[in-house]
Every structure is written in C-alpha cells, then in structure tokens.
C-alpha cells in the first residue's frame, strides 16, 4: 500500500553515502553486527538487505525500527545506502495522545454523569458537625512549623466542587506524548544515520 504523505508518521527514509568501491556483500557484512541481534531475521539479495525484528531487546540499536529495507545504489560517480524503515513505536506514540485525550474526556463525562444525581445528598452530609481544630505538638511549635488551618473556616470560600475526576492529567499526558513523538521522529532517524555511517566506515574486526 502506498501512502506517500501520511506514512511519514511511521516510516523513515533516507540515505548515507558509502565508498563506491565497496561491494554490496562487504557493505552488508559491515552492517551485520549492528543488525544481527536476537529476534532479527536478515535477508540479503543482491544489493538489497531486508530485516525484520520480533520484540527487540531494550538496548538493540535498531529497536525503534522493527522492519527495514536497505539498498545500495550507484549515484553518479559515488554510491549511497538508501534505507526505508518502519516503526511501530513511532506510530503508537503518534496515536497515544488520542488515548489520553480519551481518558480526559472519560473523566469529564463521568463527572457530569455523577454530578447530575448526587449533589444534594453530599452537601447535607458535610454540614453536620464542626470538625475539631488540630494543634501541633509542642516540639513542632517550638521549631516553628506553621500551625494547621482551621478546617471549619476553609469550607466557606471553597469553590464549587468540580467532580471526582480531573481531566488535566489526561491533557498533560497527551501533550507529553505529542512531544515524545516529535523528539523521536527527529532523534531516531538521526541516530540511525549516525550508526549506519559508523558501521560502514569500519571493517568488521577479524574473528
């Protein structure tokens, strides 16, 4: 399926220059230590390398990109390694704000639903008896800790009850995930480029 614009959300494409003298087999051999981690299947055919990761480890350098396609192409006199990577993590982070906005809306809806029925009975209960005023221990009085407030005074200027749940946490987390997505969409491709470049520059150590 081709989704040329919208798939920028979860797909990362780009290229890194490589030494034109490098044969595809050797270039892929250099990438092998980077990509061959537990749970990864690698298929190299001609100038194309395809990989797929099943539940990669936390420290897997390509953990964010669970599928990918790497192709060596000749461009003019030089050569480039073109990559086309797919990320579940980026897609889920992009969608996560919707989930948390959903939780925020749930809080608003429950508040409205509960508020319609229970208002009268709650207020009657609160007014019953005055609460005892609490006094600090003499040690704390001596050390100068502020005295506790009179619980009976506070009630008067308290604003209207806003309900049992607050939607603010949901809004906050939606914003946090929007930020996490933006950082990841920039940071992860940058790291991929850096790691590919470093791997291609160094011949693998003889074993």
């Amino acid at each position: 399926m081709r989704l040329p614009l919208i798939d920028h959300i979860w797909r990362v494409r780009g290229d890194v220059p490589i030494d034109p003298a490098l044969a595809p087999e050797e270039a892929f051999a250099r990438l092998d230590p980077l990509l061959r981690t537990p749970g990864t299947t690698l298929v190299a055919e001609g100038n194309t390398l395809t990989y797929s990761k099943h539940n990669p480890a936390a420290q897997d350098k390509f953990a964010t990109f669970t599928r990918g396609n790497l192709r060596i192409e000749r461009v003019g006199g030089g050569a480039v390694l073109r990559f086309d990577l797919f990320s579940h993590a980026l897609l889920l982070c992009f969608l996560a704000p919707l989930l948390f906005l959903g939780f925020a809306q749930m809080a608003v809806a429950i508040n409205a639903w509960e508020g319609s029925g229970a208002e009268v009975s709650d207020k009657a209960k609160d007014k019953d008896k005055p609460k005892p005023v609490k006094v600090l221990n003499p040690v704390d009085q001596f050390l100068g800790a502020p005295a506790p407030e009179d619980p009976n005074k506070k009630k008067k200027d308290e604003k209207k009850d806003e309900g049992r749940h607050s939607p603010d946490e949901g809004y906050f987390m939606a914003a946090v995930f929007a930020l996490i997505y933006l950082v990841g969409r920039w940071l992860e491709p940058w790291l991929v480029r850096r790691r590919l470049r470093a791997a291609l520059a160094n011949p693998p150590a003889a074993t």
Partner: protein
Amino acid sequence: MAGVQVGKRIIGADAPVIVGWDNIGKVEGGPVKQFVFTYFQPAMLFAAILFWYYAPNWLAVASTAIAIRLGWMILLLVLEWVNPRYESWQLTWKEFATDAFYVGLGMTFLGMVDAYIGDGVMIKAVQGAFDWDKFSWFTGLPLLLQAVLISMIFDFGQYWMHRAMHNWHPLWLTHAPHHYITQLNINKGAVGNPIELFLIGLGIGGLFDFLPRAFLLAGAIGMTVSVYQHINVRFNTPRWWRFIFNTVEHHSVHHSQDYEATRSNYSGTWIIWDRIFGTCVDGEAEVLGMEGGRRMHIGETMIFPFREGWRSTKAALGKRRGASQQPHPAQLEPAE
C-alpha cells in the same frame, strides 16, 4: 555458576549477582563528582523534609508536590544521563516512551478506578462501621514522627503485599510482568500490569488520622528515598543510608535473573523491614529480567495475568480430570 550462600540460600547460582558491599561499583571521577554522588541522596532528603516542614500552608498543598515531582523527575533523568550505573541500562527513546505510557496510565485511568475501589474508599467504609476516633491522638505526635509512621506503615503493607506476590501464584501472575524489565530507570516503577499497580498501591495509612502536613512530609520521604530503587545512577550510597533505606543496589538484586535473588528485598522505602523479616540481601546486579532477558511489550503486559491464569487453570483442571480417569501412574513418555 557457584553463587554465594546467604543464610540458608544460594544467591547468584543462575545469573551473576554481587553479594555484599565489598565488590560493588564506585563513582568514578574527580573529587567534585565523588562528593555530589555521595551526598546527593541524603542532601535531597533533608532538603525535602525542611521544605515541607516549614512551607506556609498556602504552599504546602498537593499541587506543589506534583510540580516538585515533575521537576525532580527531570533532574533524575539528567543524573541518569550524566552518571549512569551501567551502560547496558542506558535509557533509549523507545524505553522512555514505553515507561511514559505506564506512568500516564497510572495518572489517568488507574487514578479514576482507584477513586471507586482504592484503599481510600475501603477505609472510609470500614471507618463508617466502627468508631475510629481513638486514632485521632496520632495528630498530636511530632510531625516528623507522624511522617515516619505513615511512611513505615505504608511500606509495611507494601512489603507483605510484595512478598505475597512472590509466593502465591495468582498474585505472582499480576506482578510477573514487572519482572520482565531488563534495565532500571526512574520510571520503571510504573511498568507492570494495572492489577498489580492497583494492589501495590493499597495502604492502611488512611485508617489513622494524621495532619495533612505529615502526609506531605511522608510523600517527600517516599519521593527522595524509594524513587531511587529504579534509577540508573551510580551513587556511593552512605552506609547508614543503605542500612535503613531501600536502594537501587538492593532493588537490582531483587530484579536479577537469578531466581533466589528475586525473592529478597521486598520493601519499597524501608529496607529495615527486610532486615527484620530476614529477606534482605545486600549487593547489586546488572543482568536483569525473566526468561533470559526477554522484553515484554505493552500488549503482553496487559494480558499476561489473564492469559497465564487461564493456562494454569486449564492445566490444573486437565491434571485433575486426567487423574480421575486414569488411576494408573502416568506413562513415562508423554504422547505428542
């Protein structure tokens, strides 16, 4: 692996664990770095206590605590970046995003569920049934004593809940996903199945009548002590601190891939509970997790207790049925 005998148990036979304080890692660097990472933990605890002790009433409220906590988390993330305990625990973008999901779930959905079936509701119901006024003398105790009592009472409950989770299969199924984490970072405490997070949050502290300021002080103790149990920062933790309080050293042993090591260090804040009840193992570990370090993704974490519970029940029922149908001993070679 030979392992080390601690009491009646062999620790570190399945996976590497450093037992005792002699061979654990130290902060590497100049005198300033040494100083900062030796005294950071106690300095922050005393600063937090001083702040909550003297903050005027208008400032000593829950929203201030939330704002401080946010700034605090950012500071701890910076420390993880500057002075990691292990490179193999380095926080990646994907791990951070995953942890943030669990933190967010705790703040939103779980918070809402808690409002109906959490400890606050249960305690109110119990208090309605009896006359609990006799506990009100607690409010006359010195503030710090109240705060320490709140923190220790809550942690006592957590200790036994946590120990039960490691000893009773149905509870273990809820807690197991948390043990699939393969590295420690400050938000890893939030990673786990929601049922477990709900259970571990239950406390009996609400039964007692404390001053609000004492609760905030207790929260400050939690924020500046138990927060370090999942931190990837190398500290030269002072001896007295690691004798009284839980540390990342203790908790890394608890999360080790070594089975016996996981059955230790159950407390959240006061390791002294483990010392009293004989489950403390001093030391540290780097190789963490279950099943050789398989990472458990979010989807599996959510369904794990139900899936495994179903499998266990089916297996148990099958065994019982099989036993009643076949009175003879089972055949030596299982049928395919």
